[in-house]
């Protein structure tokens, strides 16, 4: 059997005896998109922090490519895994392009390749016009796009010189609410982007609040509540009005788009 790209086994996190995450197990394969949903305080961000090794685990392990994340050399890890935190504060007057260029920090591919990658991701995120503007002057959504471009630049193409012969290694992108400031068009852009990334062998674990966005972009949905993983699976198999009521305390109807057959959620009221 193939080693999963990301393997979380029996992960628990406690801070001062308060359990934040209990016994979470989750696997992600190369190129897969998993949406992590759950109410506020259900532990989504803590789980991301635990995966990347920023949060000490009290039990369990996380492995990337079969190797515990803690054992990775930070630089090699950065070439394989990029993280977009929920909010980044950057007060220094870098231009958009310079911020995106910081995503190339772990690589030694040289100016020419870096610039090409930066141009590509800026174009991809409809952010060319932000390249020469000062980051602190941008709107929330524009800043978010630049930050997204930065983490994309970090894992955009395959390999630095030493491993050129190998086809692009599978990579992992962790996004914590990347769309909180996005308008409709850019939300749709995000959906298409996330799906396109799987063709580049980039798996995406995305934390979102908007369930419709999760349904639109993810192969699987992982539902968290009170520090536990309630369920994880294909949307059509797991997303039911009962689950929504139980986890989010909201009455919802689940419908299908008449053309694409994709599920949609319509909220009817608090339960």
């Amino acid at each position, binding site marked *: 059997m193939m080693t999963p790209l990301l393997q979380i086994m029996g992960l628990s996190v406690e801070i001062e005896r308060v359990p934040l995450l209990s016994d979470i197990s989750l696997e992600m394969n190369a190129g897969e998109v998993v949406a992590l949903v759950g109410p506020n305080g259900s532990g989504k961000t803590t789980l991301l922090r635990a995966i990347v090794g920023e949060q000490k685990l009290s039990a369990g392990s996380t492995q990337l490519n079969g190797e515990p994340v803690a054992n990775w050399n930070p630089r090699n890890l950065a070439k394989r895994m990029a993280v977009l935190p929920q909010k980044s504060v950057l007060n220094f007057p870098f*231009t958009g392009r*310079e911020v995106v260029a910081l995503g190339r920090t772990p690589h030694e591919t040289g100016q020419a390749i870096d610039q090409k990658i930066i141009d590509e991701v800026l174009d991809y995120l409809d952010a060319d016009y932000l390249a020469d503007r000062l980051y602190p002057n941008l709107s929330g959504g524009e800043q978010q796009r630049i930050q997204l471009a930065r983490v994309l630049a970090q894992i955009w193409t395959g390999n630095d010189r030493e491993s050129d012969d190998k086809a692009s290694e599978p990579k992992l992108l962790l996004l914590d609410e990347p769309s909180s400031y996005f308008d409709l068009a850019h939300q749709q852009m995000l959906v298409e982007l996330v799906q396109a990334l799987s063709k580049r062998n980039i798996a995406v674990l995305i934390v979102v609040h908007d369930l419709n966005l999760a349904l639109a972009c993810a192969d699987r949905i992982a539902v968290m509540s009170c520090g536990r993983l309630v369920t994880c699976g294909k949307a059509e198999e797991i997303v039911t009005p009962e689950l929504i009521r139980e986890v989010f305390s909201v009455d919802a109807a689940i419908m299908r788009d008449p053309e694409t057959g994709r599920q949609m959620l319509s909220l009817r009221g608090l339960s």
Partner: protein
Amino acid sequence: MRLVSGRQLLIYLLWLSPFVLISGVLIGPTSISLFNELNTQDLMILREIRLPRVILTALIGAVLAMSGAVLQGLFRNPLADPSLIGVSAGASVGASATILFGMNWFPLWTMLGLSSIAFGAFVGSTLAVLLVYRISTGPQGTSVPTMLLVGIAIAALAGAANNLMALVADNEMLRRMSLWHMGNLDLANWNRVMIGSLMLLVFLALLRGQAANLNAFLLGESEARHLGIDVDSIKKRLIFLTALGVGISTALVGTITFVGLIVPHLVRLLSGPDHRSLIPASGIFGALFLVLADLLSRLVFAPAELPVGVVTAFLGVPFFILILYQQRGRIL
């Protein structure tokens, strides 16, 4: 918006350097002209007074400004300056205590041509930085916001200690203390230049290759970590190198404020926050700024001298305020 690229700014500054340095050497209460024949007295002034003074001033200006740039990056706060990690506060307490208690640290130090005040200042600054660092470092690493607050607290404590010592000091001691606090470059001699150069070499060696890391730091510590940077060891290294640089500088010439705050800030306004150009440009800018300030300090009330700290404040602060005023509501 940016006025010049980092590279252009560096080139301009390098062009400017010889003029500033040569003026610093030639102009003073006794002006020396290169076009006349130099007499022995002129040569003596050049060799024993002006040259070491200008070199030491430039070294220290460079180190203070680069330390400021590093700390502003590390604290992700464009208004941080070297005093924030407790260096200046510790140094001033060390110096005051040495003056007050007439401590003679150890003869070797005086043999090197340095006063025991310098040694006291160095000990004080080292202790203060260690204290700030220890308090703000927990099992999760060093907390930069805590460090900022602890630095302010230690500075306040040092201020109180200084006031207390000033209260019990006699007139002569009081005068020496306050002169030391204002920074005095007339202590320059070749021994100090040698120590300053060694310090600059170590400083630059430790700083090598850190510009890209500092750029990533500006995004935030966890963002930097996600970019594959060993945040904790780099933080330690940067704190160590600034403490070393500012500690020794302060020990050599007393406290000189504002250079570390204003110079990197101006450079950032001129050519952006990229540390790959910010640090070298701040270094040269800081050197030239301090040499000019020192030149003014010698000229304004010649033959009496103003403490250079007074000049840097009078020169730098209004300019700084002017810029802040113009930039109101815009991003600095």
